[in-house]
Every structure is written in structure tokens, then in C-alpha cells.
């Protein structure tokens, strides 16, 4: 090989290495980095309409219509499976748009079972409404339970938006729960959610 050919080949290799290094150095938002690259969260926030008929129980199972839940699920929920959907990572958010006329106290219900294993025997989620902590959902074993919290009317925003944040106390590795390679971390398997006027 001539020196010129060798130089050209080396130049090409260096050029490719440089381009690859540039491509691999991500310049992305913190949400993108946390969700896709570091995988430290399962919450990739997205715009949702919050469209919801007050009192409707939304079932998350894969054989149920997904649109209604897609309208309120901002982030934190994995693909629907038979029976429900996993709450993925330490945080999940829901948005209910009830309209400006909503002035009554409300009840938020969630039927779920905790992701538990030998080391973690119960799952707990701190529930915030429009930024204020209102209580704790407790799932003390692996059985499905319906937990509910009252949301006083004074906590509702003037536009009728109800933003509910669920912050998990702990999560479990999905691979120990599912028995196959899965680096995600799960906390609750949610069967249904419902927001209704307080009776």
C-alpha cells in the first residue's frame, strides 16, 4: 500500500470515528435523558387533553379501549397488559380536565396491587393534587385493593384541572417480577382509576 493510500484510509477512519463520537454525544432535554438514556424514570411527560367524564371507571387492561386513559395519562404507565398496566418507575401523573363549573369535593380511586417480592412486602404511593400532598395509597400485599382519597373542592384550580401525581416510596426490578430480562422498575399494577363527586 502506498503512503498516500494509507493516509487516505487513516483519514477516513478518523473522520468516521469523529462523526460517531459527535453522534453519540447527546444534546437533549433532561426528561429525554432520564427516560431514554439513563432510564432513571418511567415518566416521559406528554401533552394530554385531560378529557374525562366524571365518575367513569377507566380500566387499563389491554382489551379495553385505550383512548380514554390516553386522554388522562401524562406519564409513568407502561403498555397495557392483560388485567391492567404497570406503573413504571417512581413517578406517574394523571390529568383530569373537569371544566370551570366543577366546585364539588371529589374522590379519587385507584384499584391496584403492589409490586412486591421477598425484600419489599408493601407498596405505598404519595398522592399529590395540583402540587399539594393529600395522602398516601397503601397496598400492603400482592392482592388487588381499591384505595381512595378525598379531594376538597378548594384544591381545584379555577380552570377545573385536577393534576394527580403519584410518587412511589419504592420500586422493584421488573425482571424479578416477570422472570425475564427487563431493566425497568415497577411499583404498582393498576387495574382501574376513577374520579367521582364525593357522595
Amino acid at each position, binding site marked *: *500500500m*502506498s503512503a498516500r*493510500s*494509507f493516509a*487516505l*484510509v487513516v483519514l*477516513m*477512519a478518523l473522520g*468516521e470515528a469523529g*462523526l*460517531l463520537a*459527535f*453522534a*453519540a*454525544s*447527546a*444534546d*437533549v*432535554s433532561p*426528561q*429525554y435523558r432520564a*427516560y*431514554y*438514556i439513563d*432510564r432513571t424514570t418511567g415518566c*416521559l*411527560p*406528554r*401533552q394530554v387533553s385531560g378529557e374525562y367524564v366524571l365518575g367513569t371507571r377507566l380500566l387499563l387492561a389491554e382489551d379495553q379501549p385505550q383512548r380514554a386513559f*390516553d386522554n388522562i*395519562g401524562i406519564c409513568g*404507565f*407502561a*403498555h397495557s397488559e392483560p388485567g391492567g398496566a404497570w406503573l413504571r418507575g417512581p413517578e406517574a401523573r394523571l390529568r383530569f380536565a373537569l371544566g370551570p363549573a366543577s366546585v364539588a369535593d371529589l374522590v379519587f380511586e385507584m384499584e391496584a396491587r403492589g409490586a412486591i417480592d421477598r425484600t419489599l412486602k408493601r407498596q405505598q404511593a404519595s398522592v399529590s393534587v395540583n402540587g399539594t400532598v393529600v395522602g398516601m395509597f397503601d397496598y400492603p400485599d400482592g392482592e388487588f385493593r381499591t384505595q381512595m382519597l378525598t379531594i376538597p373542592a378548594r384544591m381545584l384550580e379555577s380552570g377545573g384541572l385536577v393534576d394527580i401525581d403519584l410518587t412511589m416510596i419504592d420500586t422493584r426490578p421488573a425482571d424479578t417480577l416477570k*422472570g*425475564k*430480562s*427487563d*431493566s*425497568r422498575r415497577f411499583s404498582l399494577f393498576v387495574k382501574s382509576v376513577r374520579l367521582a363527586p364525593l357522595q
Partner: protein
Amino acid sequence: MKYAASRSTWLLLAAMVVLATTLRYVVFAIATQQLDPAALVGQLCRWDCGWYRNVAEGYQQGLPSNRTGTADWAFFPLYPMIAGTLSRVSGLSWPLAGYLASNICGLVAAGIARPLFDSNRHAYWLFSFGLLLGPFSLLFSLAYSESLFILLTLAGMVALRRSSFVSAGVVGAMLSATRVTGVLFGLAIAVQALADRLVVDRSWRSVASVLTDTRLLLALGMAPLGLIAYAVFLRFWMGDGLAFMHVQIGWNREFDNPLVQLWNGAQEGFPFHLRWTEQTSFVWAALGGFVLIAVLVAKKRYAEAVFCLAALCISLSAGLASTLRFVAGLAPLGVVLAEVLASRRWLTYVAYPVGLALGLLGFAGWITGNHVMV
């Protein structure tokens, strides 16, 4: 070129494409009770077809609006660019342009594969029949990148058989712009170069001389260019050049040891349990792939074997989903299977009707929503 497809060969292949289209239409009409050909093409555009359409219209920027973060960055650009251009130039809808582009890929793939079979006409015709009418012929009706991938792989194999490394490098660059596993064609080029040298001279000096072959190094440098170009594009477009890899989390695809993935999948069904699941089909497809790779090794076709082995392992490392389609998309496996079947006359005669029946069954499964080829 010796054993290039003759005019009559091309005509016969074109007749097979027409026959395949006609048979699919009949199956569609029977299965769905619809007679509108446009409905057939629309019905074929399922699952990833929509993603490829998105790519043809321009990659997504910003965070995805769906619940699990899936996005079109996972889909490499060359196939949707070709089908999208066909759609824009001809005014055809995306599903129809995709259908046409994939059928053309199938026809050209069968034609250019002729030199790979030398004087073994029985194997060639069985391969072509399998490609256009056989169990995985469905791939040439879908707006999916497999059709182009198979065509380019066959073109690369022909180039390697002729030791035309620069041509193989150009094909490799196109392969790496079609699917991520296309970048592995560089391995095939390196192995073929080494094998060629060792046939002439088995000394270490011969092996070392490979590293001073400018044409070979140029080919090896060209092979990943498609992937690099796409990664650089993504870096400029949405900030992450490796988004095609990172976005796999949206489909719950996790990278792990391919054998562990295979073992986990195998435990779900037959023979560990008396049930046949989708995972079971994927596991057996992978095992079939490994057997055919072993046959390639036995036939001393090391370059093709290494390419298929690496591609299969990379695919399996991200999970078992779509394994059947990925195995079917590895053209050297189809070539060697045709050679094996054609080595016994009775097997050849059995393979034609069985292949056709499986092809029509696979097609019927696709249009009625079966997931096994997804």
C-alpha cells in the same frame, strides 16, 4: 457474467410476482369477503408500516406524544426514502407505493441471486419460488424494510463471490442505512477477504497482507457509512445520534445476552410446556436460523455465516419479538436452505406445494391480524 439471469428467467420471475399478487388477492377476497384491491393493500399496511410512513413523511422531532415513548427514530431511512419517493413521484398512496416498492425489490432480488447458484438450477428456482411465493414471500408485499434488506444482502453476496470488495462496500453502506444489522456486512467483507487469501496462501504473512489492501480497507470503511450518516442526522435533527437504539425502551426491548433471551423465551412454551405461543415460534425460528448457519459453516461459506450469526445474535439480544421476520430477512439462510432442499429430488417436489401453502397461510394470517410475522 456467468450464470446471470437470462431474459426468459426475468420473465418467469415477473410471472411469479403476478401469480403471487393474484393468489394473495384471492386469499384476501375469501378471508375478508371484500373485493376491493385497495382494501387489500390497506389491510397489508399494519404495525410497523405506519412507522415507515411517518419516516417517509419526515422523522419526528421532540418528545413522542404516545404513552410509552415509541417513536420513528427506530426505523432506518433508506427503505422509506425509496418508497416515499415512489409515492410522491407517482401519486400513489403510501401502502400502494410500499407494496409496489417491495414487490420490485423481490423481483430484482430473485433475478440478481442467479449467479449465487452457479449450475444448480434446481436450487435457484426453488429459492426464487420461495422468495416470491413461499412462506416468507409476505415480506415482499409489506411496506417494511426487509424486502430491500434481502435485495441488498443478495447483491452484496454476489459482489463478495466475485471478490469485488469496493462494490460490496457500497452495498454495505446501503445495508447499514436500511437496518441496524446491515452494518454487520462489514464483517462479511473482512471474513471473505481473509478466506480468499487463505485459499491462496495459508501463512501469517498472507493474513497480514489483508491489512494493506487499500480496496479492502476502503470497502470496510464504506460499510458503516449508512449507519453513521443516519446517526449524524439524528444528532442534528433531535439531539441524540443513538436515538434509534435508546428508543427501543418504548417497545420494552431490553439488551441482554442473546442466549439468555432465547432461554427465557423457550421456557414459556413447547417443549417445556404443552402449548405453542408466539414466543415459541420465535424461539424455533431462531434455532432454525442457527442450524442453517451451521450448514453455511459446513459449506465453508464463512462470510455469510458470520454475517447471519452476528445479525441473529444482535436481533436476539434485544428480545425475541419479530425473530421470525428477522430470520426470514437473512438472505444467505434462504439460499442455503434452497440448496439443501434441492439436493434431494423428492424434497424439492415436496417443498414447492408446502412452501406455497405456507406462504398463503402466512398471508392470510397477516391480513386477519396474526402477530407471528410482526
